[in-house]
């Protein structure tokens, strides 16, 4: 309780009691509408707490939730995309690629779907991963690099459980005793010679004879591979399981037979088409 009323000699205004380091404050009264605005904001907050979730455990009379608003908006944007997605599902790949608007939508949609579904094995941006997960940005395709071929691979998978899966079954030349260790070493040397990395010309020459008899049926006389049967190109610079002599010999002895799941049933047709066009557009599409 203040005991004294003090006034400023110059302005004649009352001086408040509080003091900070010798500084005192004049009482300059605010207009009343100012304090009414304060009351109005207090009233507003009371109404807000009743209408909206503001107190833990009470959702508010309107039963509004941000989460539900997001769900609604997602549904809205899906509905907005529905027409395009329907068109995508119904058109063939060439028609989608030729349509600038639908094509751009496919690339954008494919990028998102790729990150969600494919990147864990094939890497972000299709960079591939060691140990049998092929890079999709390069120009080397085991099962073909046309949009249609890529689409089929995604839809039905490789050695997957789907009835229409792509299957190639390379014999286990070493494990099943079809070739001797020495023969396998010679074939490996020949395979390396196709890309100019062999060191033993005599062994490569012996291996060439064995290759023509056992391997050329699938991998081709020149070793360039045959995409229709999923036989990889052995003459290029890209190796799925390693390009040194031991790795090649190991693949001949006991082929890896990598598996890719079929995506039909998991993803809808429009998404698979978008993925095919996105992968095709990464840089190596044929």
């Amino acid at each position: 309780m203040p005991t004294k009323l003090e006034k400023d000699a110059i302005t004649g205004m009352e001086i408040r009691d509080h003091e900070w380091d010798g500084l005192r404050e004049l009482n300059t009264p605010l207009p009343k509408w100012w304090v009414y605005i304060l009351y109005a904001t207090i009233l507003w907050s009371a109404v807000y707490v009743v209408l909206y979730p503001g107190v833990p455990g009470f959702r508010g009379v309107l039963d509004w939730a941000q989460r539900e608003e997001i769900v609604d908006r997602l549904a809205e944007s899906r509905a907005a995309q529905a027409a395009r997605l329907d068109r995508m599902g119904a058109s063939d790949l060439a028609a989608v690629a030729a349509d600038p608007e639908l094509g751009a939508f496919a690339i954008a949609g494919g990028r998102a779907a790729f990150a969600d579904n494919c990147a864990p094995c094939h890497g972000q941006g299709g960079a591939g991963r060691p140990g049998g997960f092929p890079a999709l940005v390069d120009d080397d395709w085991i099962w073909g690099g046309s949009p249609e071929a890529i689409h089929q691979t995604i839809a039905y998978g490789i050695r997957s459980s789907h009835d229409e899966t792509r299957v190639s079954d390379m014999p286990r030349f070493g494990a099943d005793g079809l070739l001797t260790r020495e023969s396998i070493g010679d074939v490996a040397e020949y395979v390396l010679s196709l890309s100019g990395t062999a060191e033993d010309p005599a062994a490569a020459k012996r291996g060439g004879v064995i290759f023509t008899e056992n391997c050329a049926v699938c991998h081709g006389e020149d070793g360039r591979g045959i995409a229709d049967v999923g036989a990889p190109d052995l003459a290029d610079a890209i190796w799925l399981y390693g390009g040194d002599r031991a790795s090649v010999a190991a693949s001949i002895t006991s082929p890896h037979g990598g598996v890719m799941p079929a995506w039909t049933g998991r993803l809808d047709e429009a998404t698979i088409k978008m993925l095919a066009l996105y992968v095709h557009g990464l840089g190596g599409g044929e």
Partner: protein
Amino acid sequence: MTMVGDIVVVEDAVSTKARKRDPLYVDRVRVYPKRVHGTFRRVKWAALIVLLAIYYIAPWLRWDRGPGAPDQAFLIDMPNRRAYFLWLEIWPQEVYFLMGLLIIAAFGLFFVTSLAGRVWCGYACPQTVWTDLYMWVERLIEGDRNARIKLDAAPLSAGKLAIKSTKHGAWLAIAALTGGAWIMYFNDAPTVIGALVTGAVSLKVTFFFGLFTATTYLLAGWSREQVCTYMCPWPRFQSAMFDEDTYVVTYQAWRGEPRGKRKKGESWEGRGHCVDCNQCVAVCPTGIDIRDGSQLECIGCGLCIDACDGVMSKVGLPSHLITLDTQSHQAARTAGRPLRYRVVRPRTILYAALLLLASGLMAAGLAARTTSEVTVQHERNPLFVTLSDGAIRNDYTIKILNKERLARHFVVSVEGLAGARVWIEGQEGLALAAAADAVTTARVHVAVPGAAAPAGSSEIVVAITDIASNATARHGSVFVGPER
């Protein structure tokens, strides 16, 4: 009553319980500005007419930008992310032009304020202009100061109700016109006004129309000087731009004091020129007494000068008892010293320099403004790709902002990389078509034979040439090869 320094101890509050503290909140003192004639009033009318004319006419000006583009000279097109100012078309990426304009406006305000006080507040601020307009309407309907005071004091009657409703009706009409004009800056003016009249406008347009109508009505009709005194931050810190050489509205106390009423024929000997007629207070739109000195509430409009000049001419004294003057002049006049005025002083130099700098940067930015912008982004997933023939390929995402309203073609080439092969995903040839008034994105591949690939990262230049004008934009980027 004792006096301690500048503090007067009034009395002991405990012993005299009758003494009450001043309240923390007070009723608003209503201001009834009186009509006035004179130079400052004429300038204020002229400013009002010019500014309102600019505000209402500007959205109707047309500017031909060719087919497909809006033909409104001043338009901020929010849905399409474009702003049009005469020949300029601002993209969201160039919002710094808008910021530069605001910075120039701020330094211009500081500069003018340091020279001539609150010219902005008194003449050009929308709050002042619309309040002035509203007061003019009020005076037409309710009469001048005394009539208005009488009307407000009178009990409610049919006549009073009629006058009051006429006034508020007129105010609301002006407010609606103001809100209507505001939305014209964000929509095609003829279209949106047509839609507004027929009621076929979107909820958003209706909301902003209502918002600006309501704020105009409340701020210019009801709040008036309360906005300047209590809501606006500018009066609170504009004193930082003032100094003793700033021209402000000043009561020349050395000439006016001691003031007092004067009988006709009384001598001017031994007294000041102020006859205490209170005309300066009666005309003041913020209701202050300028004779108390320069104060926060004064918006510097100079109407008190006009009022006082009228009185001075009636009593046969020289005008400008209240005038525009500097503090240093007043001190010199009081002491009888010669006047000294300095236009060039540190703060004016600083504000002028900042103003010139900001304007220069803006002008340079506008001059260097290109009609296309190119960004080149090196792909990082993966950094490089080994191709089947052993070549090393890098991928780039190139974005071209074509700000022209016609499709253009750009040729992509790479410099600083021997033996490079360049191609664009999904198309033949190296001519990239950039759609009109849009951003075009392309995936560009660059490959070199394995033996020629640099070890690690090496710098290259991606050149993008406009086929029509042959102008080339060069962008530094990198080409990454395997470490060896």
